[in-house]
């Protein structure tokens, strides 16, 4: 394995590992918000189905909840670009 790695151009290995790191950062950051947005929207739909007359208010609050939850995934997205090679 080491013999194989030693044959590579050192910059190439670093670039590859950086790409893997970026993937892990964004993938990891997307797990929690993915579940969170599912919960927010699912409960909002339940609320709207139970009380259609409150749909407007629920929708506004739902978008707020989505925005707050989604921010975490977007931090991960931005961080994955910030990671330098």
């Amino acid at each position, binding site marked *: 394995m080491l013999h194989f790695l030693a044959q590579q151009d050192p910059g190439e290995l670093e670039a590859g590992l950086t790409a893997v790191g970026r993937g892990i950062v964004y993938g990891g950051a997307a797990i929690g918000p993915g579940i969170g947005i599912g919960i927010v929207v699912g409960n909002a739909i339940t609320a709207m189905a139970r009380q259609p007359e409150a749909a*407007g208010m629920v929708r*506004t609050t739902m*978008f*707020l909840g989505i*925005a707050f939850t*989604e921010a975490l995934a977007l931090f991960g997205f931005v961080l994955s*670009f910030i990671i330098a090679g």
Partner: protein
Amino acid sequence: MIFGLEFPPISHVVEWPTLFGSGPFAVNKVVLLMWLSAAASFGIIYLGGRKQQLVPTGVQNVAESTVDFIENGIVMETMGSDGLKFMPFLLTLFMFVLTCNIWEIVPVAQMPVNARIALPAFMAIVVWFIYHVTGIVSQGPIKYFKSATIPPGVPKAILPLVFAIELLGILITRPLSLAVRLFANMLAGHLLLVTFAVLCQALFTSTYVGAVLPFALLVFLTAFEILVAFLQAYIFTILAAVYIGGAMHPEH
């Protein structure tokens, strides 16, 4: 290089050469688009309000439905009737963010102004100043910071922790997340469109028929980005309204 597909590096996708000017006053395509969207958002509201007809047509229709949407959909839902004095600010914010975002799908332009962090960061700082000043003016400085950082009904034992988190929240996290949310959404949308456009082009030059499916997806994603542009403008405005409203009225 992925499967022989040459994807442009990220800096080539969002950075544009200077057209004229130099140093901090250099003007490139993004700045030009920003000026255009400022002019467009002013123009729509000005033309819509100049000759008011009883039955609105054309531009007046657009302007009136936007004003109505901001007033009933955002201000009344989040701040109540005494938030109406922030109506002009929020309307300007919404129109400007929306017109800046919509350049993403306009042919030839194809570049959302908010995919560069400068503009979202500046707008977030403006919102940050406005909600702090509003809170200080309407509640007084000590009462405002007390009501903003110490939520009612928190047990004494964890109060220092809650205080630290809330203080960090109103000073740093709120403007940071406001700016990054808009910026990252627009950048992600732009990259998505670029990826599929590159894929279409590569498949078209190599196989012709292979480009049909990616092209259909590209059209679908363009429609989806219109939705995202609206949604992000809406979310930016409603969060600004929520922050200002929260600074005006202390939490119960």
